[in-house]
């Protein structure tokens, strides 16, 4: 008789910040089930949110106004979309653009005539308008012309569009900014902190994007119907699901990651806690089978991800090449209690970074009942505070313990002080310039934390030599310009994550990693860098549709299972057979 011992497994510790907060690793993160699009969709389904169309005044070209109502158990909101003709030469992803194919906002409460009039006069102007304080989100988007034309042409002639178009570019519309938190007069985020629907970071923005996705489906079908009322067909459900919304992001996203260290700490902590919880589980055959299935899906998804960027293409290819090894490993290794910890240890030794983080993401996916509660911990009250009565020698120790990564850099080397960050007079767009070559270094944004920490460490070390018993406040009264960085160091020393461990001045620093870090937490897929500081991604591709949400799904786990979507097969073939053919 075989005796089975109760599996014992040591709880997995959180990974050290020295590993997790390396910029390149952060820049390798894929979206996870804690990403904002995923948690929003779960919340909508769990709480039975309902979305209905209350106005759809579009002309044959799809221009006009559409309004969608969102009813939650707690409140009512409206997505208001203005669609207009745009000349091709005005279609730009840059923040310096001045007109867009669609502009839209999410309003708290009802939209009466006066509010609609105010919005019609201001929302299309975006940054140049004065927006209403009941607007929670302000955004705009441009068409992907090729996809749009193909979809209209196919649907109007009774055919389904080729899904390969959505594999190349996963959307009909691409947003170029999604503003929240008080920008241009809209509501402050602090107003949402007690709002049960949108208190999580960026959840209102993600809802705005989700509504735009629904609009894009309805609009393209409408245009096709107007063009050919007799022959037009609606889009196939699989194709609708495969349709996301694009986003084009440049350096503008980078300052956020540096200016909100407490929020970044919270996001990374939640993800790392989720991973540690997953690693603390003893697998069974069912969870092993599920992990293999998810790995296969992610592998196919990445194999179908198109990018012209050579570096990202190579990273995708390396991950796709590595994943069969993961599957083979999972199939061959005996089912021991600490299998997941073995897997992660093996993966850290043998797999490329993106594949490592993908495996971690898939492990998190296995245990919704354990990790999903973390989605309510992604927000935090942000405030960096001074501890003036701290002995200065203690601050020195904190820097040497927590910020050794910053002290390790030699800022006298030209490559270590290559870039400077600044805001351009053109719509305050953040840009990078080469120090000593391009003008503006004297107006540098203080985004590079490492050189600031290093300078402060040197100054306080000198001060300590003369005043060994000094308090932090006494040092600051003598050297007040260090106040900002000192309170950041003191506040962040209480947390493991938050500071991205990179010298943002360094010649080899890749801004793309910063952008991807934030986008991964949003829930982006299909990373398609267009340069080292500009990337296009897709949101909500594969997500459940509005009509599926409105049907109040019973199986919430199935509803939530939409990560790493794959190109639907057989749609054109089936539909082509169905159009005009009599069996």
């Amino acid at each position, binding site marked *: 008789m075989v005796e089975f011992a109760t599996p014992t497994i040591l709880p997995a510790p959180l990974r050290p910040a020295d590993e997790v907060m390396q910029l390149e690793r952060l820049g390798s993160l894929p979206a996870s089930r804690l990403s904002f699009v995923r948690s929003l969709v779960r919340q909508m389904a769990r709480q039975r949110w309902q979305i209905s169309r209350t106005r759809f005044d579009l002309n044959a070209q799809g221009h006009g106004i559409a309004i969608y109502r969102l009813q939650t158990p707690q409140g009512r909101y409206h997505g208001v979309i203005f669609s207009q003709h745009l000349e*091709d030469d005005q*279609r*730009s*992803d*840059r923040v*310096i653009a001045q007109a867009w194919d669609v502009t839209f906002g999410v309003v708290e409460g009802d939209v009466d005539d006066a509010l609609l009039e105010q919005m019609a006069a201001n929302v299309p102007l975006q940054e140049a308008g*004065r927006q209403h*304080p009941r607007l929670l989100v302000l955004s705009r988007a*441009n068409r*992907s*012309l*090729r996809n749009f034309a193909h979809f209209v042409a196919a649907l109007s002639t009774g055919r389904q569009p080729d899904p390969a178009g959505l594999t190349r*570019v996963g959307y009909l519309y*691409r947003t170029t900014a999604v503003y929240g*938190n*008080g*920008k*241009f*007069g*809209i*509501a*402050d*985020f*602090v*107003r949402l902190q007690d709002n049960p629907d949108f208190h999580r970071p960026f959840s209102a923005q993600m809802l705005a994007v989700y509504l735009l996705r629904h609009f894009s489906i309805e609009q393209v079908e409408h245009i096709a119907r107007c063009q050919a009322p007799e022959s037009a067909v609606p889009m196939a459900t699989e194709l609708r699901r495969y349709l996301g919304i694009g986003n084009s*992001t*440049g*350096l*503008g996203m980078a300052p956020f990651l540096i200016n909100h260290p407490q929020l970044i700490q919270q996001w990374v902590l939640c993800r790392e806690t989720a991973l540690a919880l997953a690693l603390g589980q003893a697998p069974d055959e069912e969870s092993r089978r599920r992990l293999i299935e998810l790995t296969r899906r992610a592998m196919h998804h990445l194999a179908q991800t198109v990018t012209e960027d050579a570096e990202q293409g190579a990273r995708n290819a390396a991950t796709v090449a590595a994943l069969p090894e993961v599957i083979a490993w999972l199939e061959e290794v005996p089912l021991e209690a600490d299998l997941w910890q073995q897997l992660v240890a093996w993966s850290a030794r043998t797999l490329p970074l993106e594949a490592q983080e993908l495996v971690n993401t898939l492990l998190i996916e296995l245990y919704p009942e354990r990790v999903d509660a973390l989605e309510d911990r992604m927000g935090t009250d942000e405030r960096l*505070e*001074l501890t*003036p*009565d701290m002995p200065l020698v203690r601050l020195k120790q904190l820097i040497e313990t927590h910020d050794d990564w910053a002290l390790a850099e030699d800022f006298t080397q030209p490559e270590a002080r290559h870039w400077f960050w*600044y*805001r*351009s*007079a*053109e719509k*305050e*767009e*953040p*840009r990078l*310039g080469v120090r000593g070559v*391009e*003008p*503006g270094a004297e*107006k540098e944004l*203080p985004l590079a934390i490492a050189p600031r920490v290093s300078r402060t460490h040197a100054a306080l070390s000198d001060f300590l030599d003369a005043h060994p018993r000094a308090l932090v*406040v*006494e040092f*600051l*009264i003598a050297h*007040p*310009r260090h*106040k*900002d960085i000192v309170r950041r160091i003191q506040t962040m020393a209480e947390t493991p994550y938050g500071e991205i461990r990179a010298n943002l001045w360094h010649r080899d620093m890749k801004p793309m990693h910063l952008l991807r870090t934030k986008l991964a937490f949003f829930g982006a897929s299909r990373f398609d860098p*267009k*340069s080292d*500081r*500009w990337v296009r991604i897709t949101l909500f591709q594969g997500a459940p549709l509005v009509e599926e949400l409105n049907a109040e799904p019973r199986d919430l786990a199935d509803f939530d299972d939409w990560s790493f979507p794959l190109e639907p097969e057989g749609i054109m073939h089936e539909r082509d057979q169905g159009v005009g053919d009599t069996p």
Partner: protein
Amino acid sequence: MKASYNELQGLCRKAFIGMGFEEGDAADAADMVAWMQCFGLGGLAALNRGLDFLLDDDPDELPSVLYQDGDLAVVDGHGQSVLRSSTLALELGFAKARARGLSVTKIRHCHNRQLIMGYLARLAGRGMNVTAFWRNAQQPLTEQVVGFRANGSAPEIRVYAVHEIPEENEPNDGITLVMANHVDLLPAMRSDYRYDLLARHDEADLLACRHRSLAEGIEVDEAVWERLKQLANRMLVEATEASREGAGAGTNDND
């Protein structure tokens, strides 16, 4: 026009940086202005009144400690705005109160004193009871007391004219601060001496005002707003063709 809190704070911060404030001072000063404006206490007007002085302040003339012992400090603000000179003096008082239970801090020679309230709110948020006292005018002699309970977000404010004017009535451009770890020192007007209450702001009224500001937006004077924008623009770098290439996406994205 209406602005959001975040927008007001952000613009002020950029404007202060444009005026030559260090990053930390700019953030604190912006918080102080936005805090007052949000509570309906005229932060922008107070800033506007002191703006020309502020632009003339020498940023390198640092506040200096004239005297200090374990629980008392006297700081010279060198005639600068509290936006520039007060935060570290307040932190010094905070450190002493933490160590000794109660501290008294005197900041001499400073202007724009109303604006200090926003930083007092921050200290209160860190669990400190804070009371500030200053004299506004000599004829009639008016005094202002602002008291925050530890962890309270809104103060009790009293402004009053005193009837009996002391012989020594020199202009007083200082602030006296009392901080206490455990007891609150809110202004309860129970004096036997005669006074006329000129203004009274209670915690509840101020919190209601803040709630309205966040729901309906904060009314701001367009001229002041424009002036702040111009100051903020000082930190922007003129665009060049090279800088446009360094920014990201193309200028035409038809695809």
